[in-house]
């Protein structure tokens, strides 16, 4: 493990956040963030942004829709 430096860390933060980095790259970023308040604060903003979007924009399908879909599927007959 080596400290990758700010520039590389910044570029990779979003992928790190979305778990898109391989183990080695991810641990480089983690390593850098333990020593760099700047990058770890930047990462924290990203994490909060994701959390806020996730909890604000998740939807639950209305119960009516569920039953409408089910009854439409039931109505489908075998092709002639």
């Amino acid at each position, binding site marked *: 493990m080596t400290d990758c430096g700010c520039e590389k860390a910044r570029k990779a933060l979003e992928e790190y956040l979305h778990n898109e980095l391989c183990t080695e790259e991810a641990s480089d970023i983690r390593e850098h963030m333990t020593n760099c308040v700047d990058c770890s604060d930047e990462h924290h903003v990203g994490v909060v942004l994701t959390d*806020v979007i996730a909890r604000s*924009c998740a939807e639950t*399908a209305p119960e009516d*829709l569920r039953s409408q879909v089910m009854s*439409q599927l039931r109505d*489908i007959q075998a092709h002639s």
Partner: protein
Amino acid sequence: MRATLLERTPQAMRGTTARARLGVGLGSMTSELEARRALFVEQAMPLIDSLYGHAMNLTRNPADANDLVQETYLKAFGAFDSYEQGTNIKAWLHRILKNTYINQYRKAANRPFEGALEELEDWQLGDAESRTATSSRSAEAEAIDHLPASAVKEALQSIPEEFRMAVFLADVEGYSYQEIADIMETPTGTVMSRLHRGRRLLREMLGDYAAEQGIGTTTKGAAS
């Protein structure tokens, strides 16, 4: 004739296929349909919340989202034979939903789907990161964390469609870049760029909103 054929059919084959081949297997055809229907319901119905969320994200209103989800399920069931079992059904269903949306709703609104956005230069999209002073990042996070859900939803709905879709699929649904690429039918590089730009826009908008509302800003005050 039937009897003769049946007599010639080996014992082992005298099941569904043999009867269906003879054209007398209405009962077995029905049960084949039933089996397919049951499998489809089992695999596809658990994804209805996610599909509805995607539909809301695209159409931005419940009535259209309802229609879009219904159409998606009907189309998907019609094409279920072409779905390869064991492959990613989430991506398959979301792709059908996206294409249904583009073909019907988007066309009706007469707006082009692809293209225009990739031409937007970075400077036109602003740069949230560079606007945030080092010392205020924790304040920014704090402010964003305290925003009302309605404001966040509104902000997401206001950003360009391709960005909105990428952000929704990654940050709300937790899909991988590869899954999003499969759904949007674009290279993963495009997904990353849309996601990055979308998140940057949101961060900027939410930061501005928080500042306007005086949320989480102890230094700037509650100016509006």
